[in-house]
């Protein structure tokens, strides 16, 4: 197992290196440069200022040169300095990461609980009212454009009913936990919808087929209570496909959700990414994208390890 893990970890190094080349190329392929943000306001700009700006940032150099500069800094642990804020990229990401982790984490937990409940209920008692409600929820979650759904929830719960704040993470000046929790509700619910829909359908389908398997009949035949049959035997096996999809989704924990964060003015990574994209802040973009890619790779590895725990037949050498 240790050998397997270290081999897999070693493999990630060339993988990430390759990814970084592709990312850098893609980012640079987008037309326009960081000087675009100077022009955003429509003011007259001294053209020499634009040239000096490009020179200072080094974007007047050929792309391979820029990449090598970036890479040589990264190899010694320096992700560079953001074009627009002149601050270290690592610092900026670290600052935004907690907000994204809290939001995504809450959405995940919420989604996991609801999805498990709906998935299991739907598989055990198909075509009942509860199952239909779950299916409905899935469809709604799937069909709803996120920004629209978010704005509607704001209108209902913040503007009309006044129960929840419209946006942000806290009322400025109020540091209580309750206030933060209230701010978390709407964005977390909006985000959880897209996971609930997927996860509960996977679990329902997977569990339904497990429940028809021979070993379940055997378990029932030997007189085990239905709780144990479903809860211990079937669910465990049914989780395998669900785990792989959840693991991939888990990488989102670190990259955030662009639209939800923007609509709810949530200070997360996703919103910072959009800003960085519009202003062609290459170092910041690379930093965020690399973090995202690393997490995808890592969580894939985690998923593989979890398979082993769920299914003793899967062994890694």
């Amino acid at each position, binding site marked *: 197992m240790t050998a397997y893990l270290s081999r897999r970890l070693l493999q990630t190094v060339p993988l990430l290196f390759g990814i970084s080349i592709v990312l850098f190329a893609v980012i640079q392929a*987008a*037309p*326009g*440069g960081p000087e*675009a*943000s100077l022009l*955003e*306001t*429509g*003011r*007259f*700009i001294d053209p020499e*200022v634009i040239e*000096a700006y490009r020179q*200072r940032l080094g974007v007047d150099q050929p792309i391979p040169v820029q990449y090598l500069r970036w890479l040589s800094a990264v190899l010694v642990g320096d992700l560079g300095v953001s074009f*627009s*804020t002149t*601050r270290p990229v690592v610092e900026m990401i670290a*600052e935004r990461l907690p*907000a994204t982790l809290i939001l995504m984490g809450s959405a995940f937990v919420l989604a996991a609980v609801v999805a498990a409940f709906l998935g299991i209920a739907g598989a055990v008692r198909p075509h009942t009212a509860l199952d*239909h409600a779950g*299916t*409905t929820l899935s*469809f*709604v*979650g799937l*069909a709803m454009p996120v*920004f629209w759904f978010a704005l*509607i929830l*704001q*209108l*209902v719960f*913040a503007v*009309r009913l*006044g129960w929840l*704040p*419209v*946006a*942000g993470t806290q009322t*400025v000046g109020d540091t209580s936990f309750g206030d933060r929790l209230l701010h978390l509700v709407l964005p977390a619910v909006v985000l959880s919808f*897209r996971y609930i*829909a*997927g996860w509960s359908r*996977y679990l329902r*389908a997977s569990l339904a087929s497990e429940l028809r398997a021979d070993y379940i009949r055997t378990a029932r035949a030997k007189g085990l209570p239905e709780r144990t049959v479903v809860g211990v035997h079937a669910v465990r096996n049914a989780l395998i496909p669900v785990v792989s999809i959840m693991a991939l989704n888990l990488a*989102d924990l670190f*990259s955030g*959700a*662009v639209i939800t964060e923007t*609509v709810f*003015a*949530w*200070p997360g990574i*996703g*919103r910072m*990414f959009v*800003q960085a994209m*519009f202003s*062609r802040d290459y170092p910041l973009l690379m930093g*965020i994208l690399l973090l995202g890619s690393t997490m995808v790779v890592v969580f894939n590895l985690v998923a593989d390890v979890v398979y082993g725990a769920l299914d003793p037949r899967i062994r890694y050498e």
Partner: protein
Amino acid sequence: MTSDNLRDRDRIEELLGVGGPAAVRARRFAVVLCIAVFAVACSQSPAGDRPAARRADGDGGRKILRIAYEREIDVLNALTSQNLVDIHFSMAEGLVTTDENNNYIPVLAREIPTEDNGLIERRDDGTVDITWSLQEGVRWHDGQPFTSRDVCFTWGFVTSEGSQTYNRDQYLGIIDCRMPDEHTAVFTWDDEYGYYAGLFEVILPAHVLDGMSTDQIVNYTPYNRGAETPGTGPFRFAEWKSGEYIRVVRNEDYWRGADYPAIDEIVWTFIPDSNTRLNSMKARQFDYARLEPVHADEVKDLEGYELHLVSSNTFMHLDLSVNDERGRTLFGDRDVRRAIFHAIDRPAIAEQLMQGTVTVAHTPLNPTSPYHNPEVPTYDFDPELSRRLLDAAGWIPGADGIRQKDGERFAFVMLNRAGTADRLAIAQVAQAQLKAVGIEVVFETLESAAWSQRWRGGNWEAMVSGWFLPADPSLTNIYSCDGSNNMTGMCNVELDEVLLRSDRALGFSARKPLLDEAQVLLAETAHSLPIYYNVVPELVSRRVKGYRGSGTNFGSFWNLYAWDIIE
């Protein structure tokens, strides 16, 4: 990076697979549920029945101004920031600011130098000395005195190579800065420059930044981020929570006296989505927000708030490029350009598209500016005249209804910038109306940064665009033959001469007639069709007193020191 889309959708539908009776019923449920949620959202609750604003009740008698602000700023150094305005001006001050009528008024300067008050002196060698006497008793937020040294230091920084100040070129006429005493700074200009009074929007603290190279200052985080960012303004920096808000608190030592400012604290909360800002205002969580013109109707009767439609120095216009051969073939003839202008119904754009919130523009300078000339030639909507002009110029309708001349079809590309709904809508109107006179317009829409690149590269034929003019009325930059921001490639020798002379004229009475003439010539030469002056809907709580609104480059917060909150 996820886009909030369900990327697993296909697989999930595969899993759902059958789409049997359950799925059909579920779909019905979903439809009903959607309708229900939507109905609640749209239902009108009776007036006065709305819940009280959810504010932190712990203000403890402190007057806190809460602002829903549309974007997070980059750095606090006002002279290197790419969005100098508002937040910076709450903390930093310059020699001058402008009121809502584009008038320069002194701030850290005691008065604005003019020839009449004797503070402008022409010397025999052609140079001009302009003397700025400074307010006395002004202290930076860290207690250091503000002196002429700060003014000369700021000049040195802006004009240094790589300072990144957007209008650096305007400062380059200053060849020397002298400090006869602590409260007097004298600039020596190498010539006469009419725009001398609009510079130095902000003064930098020499005692913090002196001794550093330009590059070090640009990258100096303690100043950029608030740790060491003293200003002289009514508010001092308190806190910057990345992605969330900037908080500034009352400067107890403000030079205008103990009565100013009246407000204890301002919180600028960053809410990039305009619909979220709208909802936040409806939920009464903020005192001020800038909204979109489409929101104006929805909030004009919002209880406790007043909607101000602030006419901005940004003017929308249609530009026709003569940068390349094809541009000159199509738009080289002035009568053809006039024909295009006469084909476009601007009053309809203002009345219908913009719901009457804007006024049609005939010249770049807003009527709020004392330099605005109301007597310029106008291009009234007259498709018949347009057709006659095109016929006379030799552009004859072809078989497909599109005009032709020497085998060339009159068809051009309008370059649009994605995400600017107003400009896109104007372009669509222009497209339809030009078609009616036999001119074909096709669209190419690019994302902002890509658009900027094409625009500055001169690689385009026509576009709807907006310039944000400073309060200073110089138009030389965009319309003179060698103007550094002349994007259309236009060159009218007569206009050029008047523009350059207007830049060399000191004082209103000398400049005004020249700029009046320039505005007439600009309209006559017809390279750029002004459409309307942008309107910024600003929604302000009725608790806020002292707000005057302003569409200049100094914005509506220019007189923050005089604002108050009265319950």
